[in-house]
């Protein structure tokens, strides 16, 4: 149990404000719900990680002796489903977002606390379905559930997996709904939109996508279930159905979903780059509006997943040019982050290391996306390991690096404890190196033409696959170390004051860990965002 061991002579905070399972499982405090989410998504992260390890072990040898082909198919499917729907999508909004948005905007809690708890329970129910699928045989359709394989030819647990994802989708919708209403209606007096921290902007844009995109995948899964159950022929060509229509409906959500995964990380990085160069982010309004622009344009580009799927050439051209337009806001962000360092006072503490790692890897991830947006190039590269490398660079190099960066930045605020600095920096470098060793060879494999989801491959690809598998072990270890020292810090970590990094933002003006009601009296904001002033407290780490 996460109870502070210190005799509570200090003022009670949200951790010590009530003990026992009931106080946690029936809480409506956004901070406790964030901790509940933190525990559950870490659990799913390690399950997804086990599948990743199995995949990399299998691919170390060209003839794929470790796993049978259908077991391998289930491994990469479960890796996809668990990592995307149960780790990446909730990771930052549900943990850091839930914890920090109310204090950042000077509110006592989110607009609908009970719906927030309901969102966690829906997530858990969805998770239980997925664990049921996992235990009773898994599903082998790939996380994309392409029809007619998923509706007529796969005889694995497709229905149960579909129900699991359908339910988990509503958890994401409710979080998005809570954020939109809170950010619109519950900002402290004087806190105009352009005084908001960029983390709040990013989560607002993410909430827009969660609200507008998730229902469409929910109804698509409903149609898959209807097709599998009643065989109405909606995606079955024999009865006149169009499998490409499924791909349109699926990717209408699933492309904006990748922006759900990356936008919150961008918000975290804007905060950390600004704090550790002690300067207002360069082009604040441009970064803020580029988040919203990504959310809006993100809904117009999904067709670049269908270039070779018998989608018409003209639609391909429309989607290709729109995909380039949606890449521009991401480029603007990267340039603005880099410019924020100019003439700043930069310290390379752990969150900053992860943030700089994020910028490097996200830039490569974003640029390789430009390869896939070009029609002629995509014909050769789609469905190969180039695509696998691209989205891992954006999701693991980007979203997870951003998540770890945020976790290390706000851990003192959430738990009141500091983690060991040396170990955290070692882990950050290890994650960076392990990641590159794992996924950079996959770009070359992709151009060589190694297709995705293969567990048997021609021998000339083996060298790169062995490199990648080696990198995976380094990356896996790199992720274990933070887990260990963060747990360690709960008990033995030094006490972190209210503002160990000298950061701006309302959440740093309340004690850590914060009291249940965040603010005794709602603050009135009179200064612009990111106003740094001399720090009397000795800066830690």
């Amino acid at each position: 149990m996460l109870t502070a061991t210190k005799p509570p002579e200090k003022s009670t905070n949200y951790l010590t404000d009530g003990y026992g399972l009931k106080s946690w499982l029936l809480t409506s405090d956004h901070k406790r719900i964030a901790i509940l989410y933190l525990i559950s998504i870490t659990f799913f992260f390690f399950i997804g990680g086990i599948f990743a390890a199995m995949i990399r072990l299998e691919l170390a040898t060209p003839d794929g002796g470790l796993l049978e082909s259908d077991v391998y198919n289930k491994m990469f499917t479960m890796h996809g489903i668990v990592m995307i729907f149960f780790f990446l999508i909730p990771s930052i909004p549900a943990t850091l977002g839930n914890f920090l948005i109310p204090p950042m905007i000077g509110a006592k809690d989110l607009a609908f606390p009970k719906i927030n708890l309901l969102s966690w329970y829906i997530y858990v129910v969805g998770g239980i379905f997925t664990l049921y699928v996992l235990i009773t045989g898994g599903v082998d359709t790939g996380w994309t559930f392409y029809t007619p394989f998923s509706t007529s030819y796969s005889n694995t647990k497709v229905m149960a997996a579909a129900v699991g994802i359908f339910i988990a989708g509503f958890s994401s919708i409710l979080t998005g709904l809570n954020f939109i209403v809170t950010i619109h209606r519950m900002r402290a007096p004087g806190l105009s939109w352009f005084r908001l921290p960029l983390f709040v902007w990013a989560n607002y844009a993410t909430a827009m996508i969660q609200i507008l995109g998730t229902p469409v995948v929910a109804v698509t899964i409903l149609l898959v279930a209807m097709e599998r159950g009643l065989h109405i022929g909606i995606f079955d060509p024999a009865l006149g159905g169009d499998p490409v229509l499924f791909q349109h409906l699926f990717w209408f959500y699933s492309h904006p979903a990748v922006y759900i995964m990356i936008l919150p990380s961008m918000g975290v990085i804007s905060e950390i780059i600004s704090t550790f160069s002690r300067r207002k982010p360069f082009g604040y309004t441009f970064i803020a509006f580029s988040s919203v622009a990504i959310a809006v344009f993100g809904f117009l580009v999904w067709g670049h997943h269908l270039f070779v799927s018998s989608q018409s050439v003209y639609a391909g051209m429309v989607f290709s040019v729109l995909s380039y337009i949606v890449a521009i806001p991401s480029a603007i962000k990267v340039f603005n982050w880099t410019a924020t360092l100019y003439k700043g006072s930069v310290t390379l503490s752990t969150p900053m290391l992860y943030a700089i790692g994020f910028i490097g890897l996200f830039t490569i991830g974003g640029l390789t996306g430009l390869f896939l947006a070009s029609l002629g190039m995509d014909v050769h590269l789609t469905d190969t390991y180039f695509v696998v490398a691209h989205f891992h660079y954006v999701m693991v190099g980007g979203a997870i690096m951003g998540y770890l960066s945020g976790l290390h930045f706000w851990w003192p605020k959430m738990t009141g404890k500091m983690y060991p600095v040396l170990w955290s920096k070692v882990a950050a470098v290890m994650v960076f190196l392990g990641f590159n060793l794992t996924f950079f060879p996959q770009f070359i494999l992709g151009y060589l033409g190694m297709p995705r989801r293969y567990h048997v491959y021609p021998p000339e690809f083996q060298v790169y696959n062995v490199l990648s598998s080696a990198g995976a072990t380094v990356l896996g270890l790199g992720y274990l170390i933070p887990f260990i020292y963060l747990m360690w810090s709960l008990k033995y970590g030094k006490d972190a004051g209210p503002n160990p990094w000298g950061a701006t933002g309302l959440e740093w003006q309340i004690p850590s860990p914060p009291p249940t009601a965040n603010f005794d009296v709602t603050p009135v904001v009179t200064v612009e965002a990111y106003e740094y002033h001399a720090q009397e407290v000795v800066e830690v780490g």
Partner: protein
Amino acid sequence: MDSHGTTVLRHHFENEEQQKEASSLGMWVFLLTEIMFFGGMFMAYLAYRQLYPDSFAAASSKLDVTLGAMNTVVLICSSLTMAMAVHSAALGKQKMIVFYLVATLFLGSVFLGIKTKEYHDKFVHHEVPGADFHPEDWPKNVDMSHASLYFGLYFGLTGLHASHMIIGAGMLLFLIVKAHRGAYTAEWHTPVEMFGLYWHFVDIVWIFLFPLLYLIDPHFGK
């Protein structure tokens, strides 16, 4: 929400104004998700009606348009009674809230009754996609293989709509009990208003479903 009618300001809001606007915005954002939820299925309907206009027209002519029209009128009346319920809540007329809510519930049940009758007819005439799907007296020169697409979408769309009606009816029961106990006053009747938004949304979905499903080509093959 204690029952003797005074407003309860939830601890994390500054004032009732903020709480009220938050609930209203929250409801509208929820209706946004509902628009996209139904929108996905409308997309499937649009795609297949475009691909197989004849099969859709033939299959749609199997539907009983009068029942459909009656259902539309019933739902529009229920929208009126719901609006009147919100209206009387705003004026603090306790008795009238209960009356209009009961009227709305009654009309909602009439709608569901007509719907069950329609579904029953379909089962009898083997028009339900699945095991024994073979609609009778099918016009010879129209390919029947795509009819299961139409009926699949028909059951999908109207089934989704009916399930929203059933959930709505459940919430209506809850509201009626609370209104009967006098929980809603002129100062505070947010639940009635929010439910009103939901109910009108479900009515709007049917306003689109009626022409799109029932009136594709009413005199096809007659």
